[in-house]
């Protein structure tokens, strides 16, 4: 069976004052129907750009897809017209964002904001869309949905607003949901609830999820496959458990070792917190024919500075773009 979404050799360029930089450089991956795949990496590594690229929402005049294809259900989205992309957005592919506090329009009721997408894509009438909005609020576990449907965003907490965003995103039972750090702005207890909700609803509707996150715990719990992004390139890809058990890229290894652990006993010696030393190179460095992680890597050799590493495959479709993948 052909994958639902197949991204091939995608290159997204941003025009900055210093010139054109590839924020996504030769990225390929695929997503099967109903599957959950997770993108991890530090800020500025191109996770959100990938999402916006798929949605056709790259910042106007600044970002554009330079080459590559995004095949969705047999259709190349990079060549689709604006009108066609609008039909797809919110209907077949939808997205929730990092900032629930500001992602809802303050001057319309949440009911209207949910109903709007139903009227737009499903052709529902006013009444039917309103009723469906109440059902959706119930589905995202907002208590007393009949009363809350006419609330305004400022009357809700951050977690509730993110639930409303999920209701909007899932209103048309999309084939793909892109969740861009959906819980970063929420407190920990709410984070778990939001992830539960996403997983349950995703399974029920058969929606494939692209989860962008910093949270390794969430990745382990939610996703089947993991893609590690670094400086606009795919560093590593593979089944979540296998990658966490045995990362094949020094960057992945570093990220995993950064996750702090709770100790079983209070007396046990606590390991010091670790970090991946150094920072992501500036956007001007992107696109160089070398390993961009080299400056932060313990395994660095001359080879790393002379050419961009090729992908090396391991069992179960684990891939790593590192010259020293075998040694990691």
């Amino acid at each position: 069976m052909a994958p639902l979404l197949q991204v091939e050799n995608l290159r997204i360029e941003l025009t900055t004052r210093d010139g054109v930089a590839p924020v996504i450089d030769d990225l390929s991956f695929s997503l099967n129907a109903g599957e959950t795949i997770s993108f991890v990496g530090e800020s500025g590594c191109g996770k959100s750009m990938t999402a916006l690229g798929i949605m056709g929402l790259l910042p106007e005049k600044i970002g554009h897809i330079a080459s590559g294809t995004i095949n969705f259900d047999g259709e190349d989205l990079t060549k689709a017209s604006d009108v066609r992309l609008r039909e797809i957005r919110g209907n077949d592919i939808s997205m929730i964002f990092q900032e629930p506090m500001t992602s809802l329009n303050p001057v319309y009721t949440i009911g209207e904001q949910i109903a709007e997408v139903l009227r737009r894509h499903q052709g529902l009438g006013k009444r039917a869309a309103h009723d469906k909005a109440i059902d959706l609020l119930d589905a995202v576990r907002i208590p007393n949905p009949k009363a809350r449907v006419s609330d305004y965003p400022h009357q809700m907490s951050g977690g509730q607003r993110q639930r409303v965003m999920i209701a909007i995103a899932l209103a048309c039972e999309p084939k793909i949901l892109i969740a861009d750090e959906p819980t970063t702005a929420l407190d920990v207890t709410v984070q778990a609830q939001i992830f539960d909700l996403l997983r349950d609803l995703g399974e029920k509707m058969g929606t494939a999820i692209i989860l962008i996150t910093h949270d390794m715990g969430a990745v382990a719990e939610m996703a089947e496959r993991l893609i590690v992004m670094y400086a606009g390139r795919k560093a590593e890809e593979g089944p979540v458990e296998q990658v966490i058990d045995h990362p094949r890229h020094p960057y992945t290894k570093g990220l995993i070792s950064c996750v702090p652990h709770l100790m079983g006993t209070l007396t046990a010696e606590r390991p010091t917190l670790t970090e991946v030393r150094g920072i992501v190179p500036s956007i001007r460095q992107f696109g160089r024919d070398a390993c961009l992680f080299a400056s932060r890597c313990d395994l660095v050799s001359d080879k790393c500075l002379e050419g961009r590493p090729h992908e090396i495959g391991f069992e179960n479709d684990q891939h790593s773009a590192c010259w020293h993948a075998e040694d990691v």
Partner: protein
Amino acid sequence: MKILQRVLYAILLLIAVLVLNFSMLHLAPGDIADTIAQSMGGADAEILEQIRSDYGLDQPFLVQLGQYIWKVLHFDLGHSFFYNQPVTTLIIAKLPATLLLVLTAQLLALVVGVLLGVYSARHPNGLSSHFVTLFALFGYSAPVFWTGILLLIAFSLKIPLFPVAGMIDVTVEGGFFVRALDIAKHMVLPVVTLSSIFLALYSRLCRASMMEVLGSDYIRTAKAKGLSEREIVLKHALKNSLSPVVTLAGLQFSAVISGAVLVETVFSWPGLGTLALQSIIARDTPTILGILFFSALVVVVGNLLTDLALRTIDPRVRGKA
């Protein structure tokens, strides 16, 4: 409850305005008695005394003030000796003409200002956007009376499209619509003149707030929903960007009224502005006070209406009330 409180504050504010106006005019040198005596061609000290006691001017200041406020609270603004009519009657006769001018100008400035603002926000680097900026700068810096005279020369003298002055042509006969059309023709130039400053202000502000709103997170959400550009701008962005414009429009209401005085004078528009000018020249204190009070009243009512409008636009304002 909150609204009632606002109304109460408004009444207190109006009384404060009354006290201030009355005191300031009292401080000015000369009094009504002098002016009346002058218009009679001079009078001796005895007659002056007589006039003073007739008008209650021999009473202490506080008593006069108290009496005036008491009368105003009973909707009596005094008697104009110059026009020999109650001031209230005078003002009510002139008010409709001024309100017609002011409200039409304000409405035109708002509607066109918002349209221009939205347009130039969507094409921030286009030629027409620069034109809007230039036009706004011109409208804002040119004095209204000068704009008015220029328009008169251009569209009444050189190209006689519109009448030169007045509100209605006395020779026009016919039904309501014929007369309304005639008034509309007379209104064009004064309204355009008066709205030019405010148009400039509103379009600049609307452009700025629209551009800010278009960059906000909920606009990205609207895009992710697959809405069209039109729906995004007109539904999601416009309502949010209106709040500052409406607030400014409310604040500018007093400026519109003072602008009306100038515009009415240029175009001989038979409104409160013309009356104000004439009564100032005639030193007709009761009429001046009456007009000042009415202007304050209009500004206060305008501000109340602005509050109500903001509540309608932004639910967060309602929430705090």
